[in-house]
């Protein structure tokens, strides 16, 4: 691997380049501010950006977002696109938690209507939405046949089973299901792990949050998204659970052998990959799509359960409550997309690991209802901090294969975070800030203390000023549940 220092060339105030050298096939490009660069330089993630640039078929740049931090082979906060004919696909470029992503639902409720009821609301959510280790779903354990149905249908499956509305599917990336899903490529072990976990939140940095729209930056886009100041919204962050991790594990093993078979030389064996257009590549993509669909099914179920809690507590008609899905995005995924590169239309395999798609107005995959303004981009902050709604742009299509950051990004290891928060009453600290959180594990709260994360405000600001994903609204948490 080596630890050669990489020189940076400042391209703009918000963009740094690692010039191509040695066996790098393309330069590296990192979106960051000068305030964020010291963090970025301190944890080997820049070396990882340069390592990714060694991979066959990589197009234009090995990209990194301002929330970049060290990951498995590929950095987290990385984007890399490969031609489908000469390029590779890599499980490390997607992550263990396939389709870890975020969903935002809006309501007609305002802060003053909810503030006094936040505790009972959170308590109700905590007992309704399964979270934490060993939790099984509010949906009974499925049979393997039923699960395979989920893996193909994604968010459509819950809708067909009474969790949500058909119109929700319009408001999900890939309409809630990747058609490339192939359950035959999912191992029996992954299937087994997936059976009892449909509709579960998970733990770690996953959460369900009640937020208030704190600030609107773009009135026009906010109106199209259905957002207004003081509005109560629900933010859900979760992924594909054990099924996703198992699929990643299974295919990392496959790829370790594939690199020998296809004679791919790597600076780091965790970049193990196979040609996109190879049996191994196609198998992984088919299995990965299943995990993605599973995660969408999960978030659809969880949202539906949350809606039920609101309906019970506030006793409003669905019309008056106005609980609707704004959008759902992935931030750990590989997609086959068409992009224009040097004037030519190319079919590429875009890896987004800790990065979010950010498609512009008028793009065929931007939902029709948002076509005038662009795709909603959801950027969660850390537990005690704000989150953002942004919008996709032409700038993103031109520069980053239609991608932007995904969140705050950790700066402190879990071990350090637990030490730093030792003895501190985290739940009380949050309550003092006006945030009521219930967590299944005290340790999770300790690992998720705000100082363990970069400043999401800074991260989002960089992508806003770089013209990639302009800010639309800021959300402030008032309550949440965690595993």
């Amino acid at each position, binding site marked *: 691997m080596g630890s050669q220092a990489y020189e940076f060339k400042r391209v703009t105030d918000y963009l740094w380049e690692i010039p191509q050298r040695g066996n790098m096939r393309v330069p590296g490009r990192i979106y960051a501010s000068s305030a964020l660069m010291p963090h970025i330089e301190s944890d080997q993630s820049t070396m990882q950006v340069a390592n990714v640039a060694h991979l066959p078929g990589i197009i234009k740049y090995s990209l990194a977002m301002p929330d970049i931090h060290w990951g498995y082979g590929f950095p987290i906060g990385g984007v890399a696109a490969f031609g489908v004919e000469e390029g590779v696909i890599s499980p490390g470029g997607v992550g263990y*938690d396939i389709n870890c992503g975020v969903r935002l639902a809006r309501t007609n409720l305002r802060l003053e209507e909810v503030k006094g009821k936040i505790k009972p609301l959170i308590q109700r959510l905590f007992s309704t939405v399964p979270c*934490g280790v060993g939790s099984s779903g509010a949906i009974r354990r499925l049979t393997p046949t039923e699960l395979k149905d989920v893996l193909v249908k994604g968010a459509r499956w819950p809708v067909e089973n009474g969790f949500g509305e058909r119109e929700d599917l319009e408001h999900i990336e890939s309409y809630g299901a990747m058609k490339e899903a192939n359950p035959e490529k999912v191992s029996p072990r992954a299937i087994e792990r997936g059976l009892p976990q449909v509709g579960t939140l998970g733990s770690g940095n996953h959460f369900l949050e009640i937020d208030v729209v704190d600030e609107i930056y773009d009135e026009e886009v906010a109106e199209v998204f259905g957002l207004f100041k003081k509005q109560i919204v629900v933010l859900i962050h979760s992924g594909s659970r054990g099924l996703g991790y198992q699929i990643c*594990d299974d295919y990392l093993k496959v790829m370790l052998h594939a690199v020998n078979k296809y004679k791919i030389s790597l600076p780091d064996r965790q970049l193990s990959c196979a040609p996109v257009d190879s049996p191994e590549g196609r198998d992984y993509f088919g299995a990965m799509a299943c995990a993605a669909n599973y995660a969408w099914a999960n978030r659809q179920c969880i949202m539906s359960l949350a809606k039920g809690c609101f309906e019970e507590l506030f006793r409003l008609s669905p019309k008056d409550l106005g609980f609707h899905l704004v959008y759902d995005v992935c931030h750990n995924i590989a997609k086959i997309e068409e992009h224009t590169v040097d004037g030519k239309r190319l079919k590429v395999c875009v890896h987004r690991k800790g990065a979010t798609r950010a498609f512009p107005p008028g793009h065929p995959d931007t939902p029709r209802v948002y076509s005038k303004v662009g795709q909603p981009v959801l950027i969660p902050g850390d537990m005690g901090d704000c989150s953002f709604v942004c919008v996709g742009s032409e700038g993103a299509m031109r520069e980053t294969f239609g991608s932007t950051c995904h969140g705050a990004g950790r700066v402190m290891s879990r071990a350090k975070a637990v030490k730093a928060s030792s003895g501190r009453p985290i739940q009380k600290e949050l309550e003092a800030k006006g945030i009521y959180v219930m967590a299944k594990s005290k340790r*999770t709260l300790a690992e998720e203390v705000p100082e363990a994360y970069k400043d999401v405000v800074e991260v989002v600001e960089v992508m806003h000023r770089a013209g990639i994903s302009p800010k639309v609204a800021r959300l402030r948490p008032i309550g949440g549940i965690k595993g």
Partner: protein
Amino acid sequence: MRGRAKPPQYQLLDHTADLGMAVYGANLKELYSNSAFVMFDLIADTSKVETKHSMVIEVEGNSPEELMVNWLSELLYVLESRSLLLVEFNILDLDNNRLKAEVRGEPYDPARHEFFTEIKAATYHQLKIEKVDDLWKAQIIFDT
């Protein structure tokens, strides 16, 4: 080699997004046994876990390192699929390519077992098994 008489030596390693450990053992069997114990110790409070349930686990690998990853992965799978917290690891057979162990523990009970951290996987990152002075040492990073 029976599980443990005293808690095994280990250190937590610092990794931004993940969790790393350096575990020690007087011999290789103890190293694999201790690695398993420490992993469960990171996941939950093992002090209240009783050894009511036992099962035999067999894994293979092309090298001691791959064997270690496969061993820990198998245990994570057992934890998740059967909700079993394991605390005793009796390594019956061990060579460079195969491990067979009798493991003991009990089903996870949220009322008695405090949960700490979800471990998604044992990774190959900076994975190392080596002899340091008189002790065997394993360094493993978990994705969390």
